[in-house]
């Protein structure tokens, strides 16, 4: 049968173990006509010498392997074309082009991917409100390998590791009854059920990053059957992490809160003027938060302990401020606290830009791990909902957290030019400082707030 399309001639396999053949003689030359089954060439193999019949009728278009050449079984050695077909030379196959490198994955800093540096949580202890709180980084809890010399590294079996991961438990804090003192499945299941820490939990004093202590009263409620009207859903990893860190922070620091009222009238006026100017030139909003942040950074210079940290028996202070801002994530998924590093180097504009940037990146899940660690002080501003007071939870291992609340127009007693008392309409804002009384005493906190107020109330055009 004549071929309609070009047909390949391949080196046949003359026997199961034969892997190659040698072309001994071409019986036709290129351009010669050939009929199907007519002998086309002679080959020699380990087992036998034979002739190879043509698979098709047409013209021997191209010989790809020459006499004397040895090729592997299955190699294309010639092409038979239909009579009159144009000669298509076989080109050497293109070397495969280098694949484009995979795009660098955008590191998602949000959703709890941050490493182990603990952040303060702001849980409203009595009545939980939808307060935006910093997002704690849920660290993987099976920390047996982070013994740091506190306990011997003990073998953790696969099932124990799995249960520990599911319940956010630090295996090293459980007493084991297995061989060599290892924690057995029974041990960890009992622990989960009764929630007892085997050893009294010391406050976290390991060198940074601190291995999280297993929460003392962390017993999740024994699973019971849901009642009519009840819906049961499992906690997300982020929520579990938040729960754990909230508890731990309150267990660690001695939380005390002081409040002060600040007259923001001057800043309010300044904001209006700057808004137009900045929108045009910088595309950034002069928010109240930016002013407060600037004032906080300057004030912290005078109160290093409020920007400090307790480590063991020591107090750590810094000549820099890494300022964390609580950002609420969309859909009520949770909170995250990105950090503006070296905030002391920024002026008002720089601060506004930095805040805008991290807030945006937080919402877009584009924070890097570096963006959510290393904070030394945190500001949270739940005031957007109109609240005037709160007692946020400190982001460990910091010493304090500032809460700012709604700027509200209130009637206020002021002194007029004559030194007389008069009622004026002022834009008033409450702020709270929640501080760790182990380090910061009330008087210190009070002075800090007083100075902060002073700065904000005396802000003028020339203040940067």
């Amino acid at each position, binding site marked *: 049968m004549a071929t309609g399309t070009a047909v390949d001639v391949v080196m046949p396999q003359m026997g199961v173990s034969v892997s190659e053949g040698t072309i001994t003689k071409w019986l036709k030359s290129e351009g010669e006509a050939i009929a199907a089954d007519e002998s086309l060439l002679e080959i020699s193999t380990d087992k036998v010498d034979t002739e190879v019949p043509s698979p098709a009728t047409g013209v021997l278009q191209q010989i790809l392997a020459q006499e004397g050449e040895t090729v592997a079984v299955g190699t294309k050695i010639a092409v038979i074309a239909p009579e009159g077909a144009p000669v298509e030379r076989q080109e050497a196959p293109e070397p495969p082009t280098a694949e484009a490198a995979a795009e660098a994955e955008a590191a998602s800093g949000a959703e709890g991917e941050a490493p182990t540096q603990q952040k303060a949580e702001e849980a409203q202890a009595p009545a939980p409100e939808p307060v935006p709180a910093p997002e704690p980084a849920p660290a993987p809890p099976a920390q047996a390998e982070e013994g740091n010399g506190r306990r011997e590294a003990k073998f953790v*079996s*696969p*099932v*124990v590791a*799995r249960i520990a991961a599911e319940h956010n438990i630090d295996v090293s804090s459980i007493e084991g009854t297995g*061989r060599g003192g290892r924690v*057995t499945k029974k041990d960890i299941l009992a622990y989960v059920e009764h929630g007892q820490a085997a050893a009294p939990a010391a406050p976290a004093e390991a060198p940074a990053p601190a291995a999280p202590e297993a929460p003392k009263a962390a017993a999740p409620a024994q699973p019971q059957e849901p009642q009519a009207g009840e819906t049961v859903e499992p906690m997300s990893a982020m929520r579990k992490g938040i729960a754990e860190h909230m508890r731990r922070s309150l267990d660690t620091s001695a939380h005390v809160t002081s409040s002060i009222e600040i007259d923001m009238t001057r800043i309010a006026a300044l904001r209006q003027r700057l808004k137009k100017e900045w929108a045009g030139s910088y595309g950034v909003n002069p928010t109240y938060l930016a002013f407060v942040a600037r004032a906080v950074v300057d004030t912290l210079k005078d109160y290093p302990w409020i920007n400090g940290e307790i480590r063991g028996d020591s107090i750590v202070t810094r000549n820099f401020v890494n300022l964390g801002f609580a950002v609420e994530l969309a859909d009520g998924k949770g909170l995250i606290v990105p950090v503006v590093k070296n905030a002391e180097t920024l002026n008002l504009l720089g601060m506004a830009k930095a805040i805008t940037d991290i807030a945006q990146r937080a919402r877009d899940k584009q924070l890097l791990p570096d963006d959510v660690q290393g904070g030394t002080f945190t500001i949270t501003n739940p005031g957007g909902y109109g609240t005037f007071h709160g007692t946020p939870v400190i982001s460990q291992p910091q010493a304090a957290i500032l809460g700012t609340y709604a700027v509200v127009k209130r009637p206020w007693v002021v002194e007029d030019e004559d030194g007389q008392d008069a009622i004026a309409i002022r834009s008033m804002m409450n702020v709270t400082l929640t501080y760790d009384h182990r380090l910061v005493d009330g008087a210190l906190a009070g002075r800090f707030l007083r100075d902060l107020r002073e700065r904000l109330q005396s802000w003028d055009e020339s203040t940067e």
Partner: protein
Amino acid sequence: MAVKTYLQAISDGLRSEMQRDKRVFIIGEDVGVYGGAFKVTQGFQEEFGPWRVIDAPLSETAIVGGCTGAAIMGMRPVAEMQFADFISCAWDHLVTVAAKQRYRAGTPVPITVRLPSGGGFSGGPFHSQNPESSFAHIPGLKVVCPATPADAKGLLIEAIQDPNPVLYFEHKHLYRRIKDEVPEERYTVPFGEARLHREGDDISLITWGAMVYTASEAAQKLEEEGLSVEILDLRTLAPWDKGAVLRSVEKTSKALILHEDTHTGGFGAEIAATISEDAFENLDAPVRRIAAPDTPVPFSPPLEKAFIPQVEDVVAGLKELAEY
């Protein structure tokens, strides 16, 4: 229901199938006039005649190969190997022809090969083996190992009914020692379904055949010490009930596999590998096997006792696992 010995259950099962289905016949050495070396077919030739209870020459290949041919022609042959050990003479036929005929030629081979297996009575190297694992490895063959009289009957009927070659290992040591309730009616036991011999929480003991009773005794002893052992009788090795094993291990997190066959490459290895692959995160201890050592079956009683896993061996193994 009636209480029967393991042997009686097999004999009755076979007899009732032969009564029910004319296509079923039995062929083997000494099965006819003599009633079989172990008397499983006692009285059969009188009832069914010499062409359904066939005394064969000493020709395992012809016996098993002949069964294949007859099966392809519509019979349901049951071959009796006098001892499971002699199956090696027909290994070639089973593996080359019977196992592969369905896959490569579309031709089913519905044969059953009965294999009196196992040791414990000084039978020596050639009358005591449990040659189950090499066959369980061959695609196309099925391997069953009943432990109880009720399972023996049900699995035999299922084997005869199954359109594939089935190797039926009947443990000689259970023939007359084990008595239990066996339903009178016709019933089958499905392949690939384990039987929970004993429920427990602390350790999953997976076993089959005569070892089920060894395991049971060991578990009983340890219950007094507060250890709760779960015993799964696999009943069939090809196919085997992976699901039941994994579910049990999920519960207890500790697995011990026990078989009378020798250790290296015994079927326990397959089970252990599967547990480690599919239940890794459920394990609180390594998967252990207790099996005979890698030797031929010795003859002299003290040697054989040291060879076949004893109750004490199982007790020790369970204890060690419990304390891990």
